[in-house]
């Protein structure tokens, strides 16, 4: 916030990476992080957590399903003690990071894919496709999203895989709306008209000329959606609308299990909650920074 705007702010940052080369993208990224301190904090935070979740299990002392004594104290053999089932809490939190991040990432990618397809079709084709998609989006948005996710779980059944579907489906309309707006904006550019004059087909124009230029806002929304997806996934699991708290190590489930066994599970709740909070904070900081940098509406400020 206190940092000066990057010197390269006037460059078209949403240019196609293929044409400009990965080197330029890296340069841009480093400049962005150097000039945007909150984003740097977010980047470090989220990559640190991704690293721990990704590589942590390789160096962990205990397997997440190895059983020890119940409620063993912290320190010594168990960094955060053991839980009501005798599992090592620290191991479960590290493995839980894998599970939670994987579920959140899959559901975000599901939202992104569905939303981009629907939004791009609506924006590019217009007409009745646009009408149909946008009425569908309006309709989906006339339910509070968390309620809609819960109802989806009710229809599909409380399983971890269904959490992906529920959170992913509920997030799609936001992507659809954003992508449609972007496509409508990009569509009016002259290079699109030129491509059409050259006789290119709709699919080629959309995929090669329009969508790559909608890349930036999709990345911003994807980063911010990661944060809310983690919260939704953990929330659904906390309510018992996800996996089984006694087998799956997932942050919301660890928290639920600790909460049910309070006050003995207090440390477990604190640790799992802190993990969720720091991860979401990391993605939000990064997403906000990217938004300031890439969003055409805020870029001028």
């Amino acid at each position, binding site marked *: 916030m206190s940092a000066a705007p990057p010197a390269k702010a006037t460059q078209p940052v949403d240019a196609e990476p293929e044409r400009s080369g990965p080197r330029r993208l890296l340069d841009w990224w480093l400049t962005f992080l150097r000039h945007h301190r909150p984003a740097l904090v977010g980047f470090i935070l989220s990559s640190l957590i991704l690293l721990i979740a990704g590589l942590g299990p390789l160096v962990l002392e205990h397997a997440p399903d190895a059983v020890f004594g119940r409620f063993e104290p912290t320190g010594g053999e168990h960094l955060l003690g053991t839980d009501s089932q005798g599992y090592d809490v620290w191991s479960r939190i590290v493995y839980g990071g894998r599970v939670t991040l994987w579920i959140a990432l899959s559901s975000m990618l599901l939202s992104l894919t569905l939303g981009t397809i629907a939004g791009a079709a609506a924006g590019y084709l217009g007409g009745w496709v646009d009408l149909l998609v946008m009425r569908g989006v309006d309709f989906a948005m006339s339910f*509070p999203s968390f309620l809609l996710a819960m109802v989806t779980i009710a229809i599909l059944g409380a399983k971890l895989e269904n959490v992906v579907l529920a959170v992913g489906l509920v997030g799609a309309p936001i992507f659809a709306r954003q992508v449609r707006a972007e496509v409508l904006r990009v569509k009016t550019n002259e290079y699109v008209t030129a491509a059409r004059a050259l006789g290119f087909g709709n699919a080629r124009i959309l995929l090669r000329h329009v969508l790559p230029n909608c890349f930036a806002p999709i990345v911003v929304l994807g980063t911010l959606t990661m944060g809310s997806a983690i919260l939704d996934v953990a929330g659904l699991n906390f309510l018992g609308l996800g996996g089984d708290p006694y087998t799956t190590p997932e942050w919301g489930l660890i928290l639920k299990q600790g909460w049910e066994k309070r006050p003995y599970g207090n440390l477990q709740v604190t640790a799992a909650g802190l993990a969720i909070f720091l991860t979401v904070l990391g993605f939000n900081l990064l997403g906000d920074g990217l938004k300031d940098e890439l969003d055409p509406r805020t870029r001028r400020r």
Partner: protein
Amino acid sequence: MLAYLARRLALSGVLLLGVVLAVFLLHHALPMDPAAALLGKNYSAEKAHELRESRGLNDPLPVQFARYLGELSRGDLGTSHVSNVPVTEELKAALPATIELGLTALLLAILLGVGLGILTSLRPRTWWDVSGLTLALVGVSLPIFWLGFLAVAVFGDNGTLESRGQALLASSGGGPGIYALAALGGAFLVSPFLVFGRKTFPALARPLGAITLLVVGGLLGAGALHFAFGFRGLPLGGRFDASVWPLNTFVAETPGATGFLLYDTLFVARDSEAFAHVCSHLLLPALVLSSVPTAIIARITRAAMGEVLVQDYIRTAKAKGLTGARVILKHALRNASIPIVTTIGTQLGYLLGGAVLTETIFQWPGMGRYVVDAILASDIKPLQASVLIVAVAFVLINLAVDMSYAWLDPRVGEGRQ
């Protein structure tokens, strides 16, 4: 203008019809068999078929939909086959609980969020602004069920927790933390004087004066709390303690009681002690629930005010000699209000439907808990009814927000048909 309102109204009507249809279809999408649930142990294929036949579950869908509409128009939402109580009866308790909690949280969120947003927008890029923004970012990143847990651990009256680990919890902060919160709240409430009161009280511009003001505010906040609740932490769980105030029987037996306990205790029972009792149960869940809306409203307010405050007419208004408060509240805030009102509307919808996690932590018998319990118990009618009510409320709130644009900005709806 009228055309704009009419169009909005028609759109909402279509949306409502769609909501009703979707909720009706939910009955068939759910993997719950009402016949199996009703028959229980006596289940057999013939009996199930008979039951479906007698309840019309084998009729064509349009016939069933027409019947569903008929039931709705009579105010019949079906019966829970877990408790065997009509859903309308259960909603009479759950709905006021959620509305009371949600509106209190929204009120807190508007006061804190708009206040924080204005204050940060007035001094952009200062430590004041940065800490406000950070607070807002933390607010949207906190898992609300974890915040609830922390609030319970720090501010709750953990002496009432019937568990062997009382001492453990009490050692983690116990009651005194609530005074810190009240002191912060008090300091926050007086902080606008730092900005608006400068001209009248020049001492406030000096650090010593500012600190004195904040300390006085903090003491006032903590003192007010001490006066209200005494030394113990806040009670946990539920809307009231039935052993102290049997308010459920009071609501059931008193004509004129609404189920909104704040209203009932203050205006029907006219009992200030009962009112304080209800407040003490409401405060912590409402504060926790308000965290996300506060943060979102603060961010939107800051952004909207930031855009308005640099406009020429604000400078003109200041040059005219109008006081700071008048310029900010009348000239700037009104013109920044459209995104703020939209956000408040969205957040109200979120509070009605999304309070599940807070309600779970605080054992609040509201709509969110009702939905989750219905899902976990495979209870179709309560689920249908509560989804319907929340969605209808959501649509109506959005309609109200759209309508308010026309009042806030008379240009709305004039350019386009």
